[in-house]
């Protein structure tokens, strides 16, 4: 069953198209991820789906509720954890949750019970009466995730849930996300530009770049689509070698990136001698060669022609007026 369906969802600003005719659907109970660099349109998509922005064109439904015509019902059925922290730092953790529950019309007894349950889920039971400004970054994030769950949402949106957090906290948050997906049956829509995060958490991933979805599939299928093994090599005359190899039938795909040649193949270890043979016949000296299982990085490189780090470096230079990031979470 589809829980989110979008149909040519588009958001235009005067000088750029942030989201460009995006159509996809998310199944009930799955963890679905949008993977893409900063400025790809991930946050804009979330803001449209959560009724904070009006789409310029196209439509979307959450459950059976239209995000434009039936905002109130959409709002009742979703939980959102924004990219920027959205807590009242002058209130305690417990108060933040309590006020949230009141806005979602949860009764007094239910409120208390639920606050305890979600705090337990994110291991913050003993921090309940501490004012949020004294929380660490990771604790704030956990509290926000707990708050997103307070009102039993059918879908929880997580916008870059572990941005700017240390490795240990990230692991912990991943654990909580998995746990609530399993224990509460919450469908999760998350965005990330971390490959490992998408790899670890998501059942299905959509790769998004410059407002367009390039492909949507399970992680398994995405990795298989570029070959079972990836061979990376450096050599003396890389362009000549690429031209020589590009028409070989046993190579699924081939790309030069960062003065490395990357090949997607089956049974990579058997192909290494073959490659060495070919390059020797072309008088090309191979400096290094390795074979490994494909990662999401390779998938991303395959579909966008760049690694996500290139994107981020480029985007840091270009200004991105709509996507401001706040201090402390960079």
């Amino acid at each position, binding site marked *: 069953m589809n829980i989110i369906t979008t149909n040519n969802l588009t958001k235009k600003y005067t000088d750029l198209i942030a989201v460009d005719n995006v159509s996809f659907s998310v199944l009930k109970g799955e963890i679905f991820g949008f993977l893409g660099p900063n400025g790809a349109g991930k946050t804009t998509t979330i803001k449209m789906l959560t009724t904070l922005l009006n789409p310029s064109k196209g439509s979307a439904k959450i459950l059976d509720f239209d995000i434009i015509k039936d905002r109130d019902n959409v*709002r009742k059925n979703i939980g*959102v954890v924004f990219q920027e922290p*959205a*807590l009242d730092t*002058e209130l305690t953790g417990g108060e933040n949750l309590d006020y949230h529950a*009141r*806005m979602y*019309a949860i009764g007094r007894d239910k409120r208390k019970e639920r606050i305890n349950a979600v705090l337990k889920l994110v291991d913050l039971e003993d921090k309940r009466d501490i004012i949020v400004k004294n929380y660490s970054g990771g604790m704030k994030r956990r509290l926000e995730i707990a*708050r997103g769950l307070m009102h039993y949402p059918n879908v929880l949106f997580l916008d870059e849930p572990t941005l700017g957090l240390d490795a240990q906290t990230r692991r912990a948050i991943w654990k909580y996300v998995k746990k609530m997906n399993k224990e509460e049956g919450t469908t999760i829509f998350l965005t990330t530009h971390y490959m490992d995060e998408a790899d670890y958490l998501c059942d299905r991933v959509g790769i998004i770049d410059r407002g367009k979805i390039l492909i949507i599939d399970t992680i398994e299928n995405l990795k298989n689509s570029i070959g079972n093994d990836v061979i990376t090599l450096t050599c003396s005359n890389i362009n000549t070698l690429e031209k020589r190899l590009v028409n070989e039938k046993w190579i699924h795909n081939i790309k030069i990136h960062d003065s490395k040649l990357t090949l997607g193949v089956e049974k990579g270890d058997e192909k290494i001698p073959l490659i060495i043979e070919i390059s020797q016949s072309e008088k090309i000296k191979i400096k290094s060669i390795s074979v490994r299982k494909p990662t999401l990085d390779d998938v991303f490189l395959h579909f966008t022609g760049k690694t996500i780090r290139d994107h981020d470096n480029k985007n840091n230079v270009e200004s991105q007026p709509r996507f401001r990031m*706040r201090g402390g979470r960079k």
Partner: protein
Amino acid sequence: MKATEIQAIYVMWLRQMKRFIRSKSRLVSSIVQPLFFLFILGSGFRVAIFEGVGDYLSFLAPGIIAMAILFSSMFTGISVLWDKQFGFLQEVLVAPISRISIIIGRTLGGATVALIQGVIILLIALIMGVHISGTVGLIFTLFFMILIAFTAVGFGLVIASKMEDFQGFQLIMSLVIMPLLFLSSAFFPVTSNPTMKAIALFNPLFYMVDGLRGSLIVGVETVNSPLFNLVIVVIICIFMMSLGSYLFSKTET
């Protein structure tokens, strides 16, 4: 109105109250600053004789109360900017409650805080020997205090909706609010100078201060009758609140 909306209004109100009580520095400065004005201006100008002004302290007290309520309520309106900056506004906007409930709750919260401050200053003025009028006058005073608070929250919302940062707020304070306050007869009568008096007629703060003074103090000369001032202030208040609510409801994050 649905129960959920009332709950939402209550949450917004409660939040303002909690924040006010916890912010010790705001609590202190919002009461101490007006008191400085009251003591220093009060004792400094007491020797000067303004035409048509009896006891200067009794003249000044309503002006200071109006000022305290004005600043405090404007702060509440403008603090929407904080919520925008710190992201909390998104959390509120994505909840299944109407924008109007958010505004009502916030306004009531801001007005409550401002009234508490106003009453504290009133009590201190009373101790200092200001002559205040009877029950009817006090009821009128309360009306004026509430109206000033609502208007100022509305004005704060207008600024918050139109501005991205706090530099603009500083500019508005020093270029708009302070001159209007000085020309409102809060600190000295404007009637002695014809130009000032003419300007005062276009100054919303003038009607607020004049009305508050007329209702609160016994035996003071005001330009307009409290009732006339009240009508004008109600109109200004409705206009400001509507404009503020309208602009806020258009807010996208």
